[in-house]
């Protein structure tokens, strides 16, 4: 099974990896609100938050280039809306939109690459996120690997018989979904056979300790302090 690289990153052993997912999620939410609602001195603030997030990645011993590149996955979407703002004669708004979306994606990436998904979902559950929604996320995540693996098998089979052609891709896509569905059902049966009741139990429970409280205070308070300081200078 080919686990995506984020799954591997999330299993690291840095201090940041060991923080309680609730502390990291709360810090992320504070940062996202601060990014989304800032106006005065936005460019300076954006640069400061970028520096903070890069420092967090380095602290977590994650590959900087890979993380920055993966955060750019949101750009095709935000660039469309930025282009609309640009055409409407508002280049400042267009730029801010791109920067905001990229910083938000980078912040989310810091969270998910320092927290294994089962722990993150458990943290979100204890923060009141509906369990049904989390289950959907859980299975979506699980079956993404299934689809990816089936696609790799099909591609290998096609290449072995003379290469994959674009024209055959549409038919292959239908087969891919049919095969993935069957495979996913088998996996679900295997999970049920071992007593799965719709809830991933964790081997290592998390505990919100003093280090987590300090982390939340420092990350949330620090991000707010940076914004207010920059806004004061900008005014």
């Amino acid at each position: 099974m080919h686990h995506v690289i984020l799954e591997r990153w999330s299993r690291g052993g840095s201090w940041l990896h060991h923080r309680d997912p609730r502390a990291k999620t709360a810090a992320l939410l504070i940062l996202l609100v601060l990014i989304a609602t800032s106006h005065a001195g936005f460019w300076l603030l954006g640069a400061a938050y970028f520096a903070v997030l890069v420092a967090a990645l380095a602290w977590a011993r994650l590959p900087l280039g890979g993380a920055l590149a993966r955060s750019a996955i949101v750009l095709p979407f935000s660039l469309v809306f930025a282009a609309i703002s640009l055409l409407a004669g508002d280049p400042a708004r267009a730029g801010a939109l791109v920067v905001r979306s990229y910083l938000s994606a980078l912040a989310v990436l810091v969270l998910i690459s320092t927290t294994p998904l089962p722990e993150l979902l458990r943290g979100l559950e204890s923060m009141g996120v509906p369990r049904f929604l989390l289950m959907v996320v859980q299975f979506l995540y699980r079956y993404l690997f299934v689809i990816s693996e089936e696609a790799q098998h099909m591609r290998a089979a096609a290449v072995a018989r003379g290469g994959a052609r674009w024209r055959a891709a549409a038919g292959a896509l239908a087969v891919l979904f049919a095969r993935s569905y069957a495979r996913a059902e088998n996996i679900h049966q295997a999970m049920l056979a071992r007593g799965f009741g719709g809830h991933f139990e964790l081997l290592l429970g998390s505990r919100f300790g003093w280090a987590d409280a300090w982390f939340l205070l420092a990350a949330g308070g620090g991000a707010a302090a940076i914004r207010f300081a920059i806004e004061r200078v900008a005014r």
Partner: protein
Amino acid sequence: MTPLIAVHGLRFRYDDGTRALNGVDFQLYPGETVALLGANGSGKTTFVLHLNGLLAGEGEIEVCGMQLSKDTLPRIRQKIGLVFQDSETQLFMPTVLEDVAFGPLNLGLSPAEAVDRAHHALHQTGMAEAARRAPYHLSAGEKKRVAIAGILAMQPEILILDEPTTSLDPPGQRDLVQLLRDLQQAKILVTHDVAFAEALAQRACFFEGGRIVATGSVSELVDRFGWSKIESCAP
């Protein structure tokens, strides 16, 4: 002697109308190993999927004195350990230890107890050294052993193995025979591998057209149904 599993008149039809089981009667007694033989599509796998409620047909199934129903299903799944044909289907957690502990955690054991059971099961299957490895990095034989460990960790009274020798090389098959001989549980082996069945099973049932058409020793059924090995097809 009271049977561990008693099945009477089991019938099942798939959604597409295919009648897969056509009145199966079967008993499994404590300590015995029974091989289920028969052609592809004769109903063997469909039958064993009924035994722990993954499929539901018409008829009566009693496991360890409990009538199979929605209420008894969790306890029955604890009694019956089902090892799937494709080990990949069964291994879905990021590490071997987490995967083997998945079942015990679902049984409501504490993480410490689940880890103890997982380590014990890995030791039983000779995979103790692989506890921290990722399942997708293991060989086919090792995956099969880990899949069996995942079932043993639930401490079932009955083991069902669906085509356990598939994708195993001869040394892997030999190791598997030795491992299964050392396990005390009653076993059902769904297999096409006559040598494997002869090495382990005291009794065999032959499936044809969704029914058990004969019961006897493996060699008797092999002779009667011409279920010969490929070596006997000499020109």
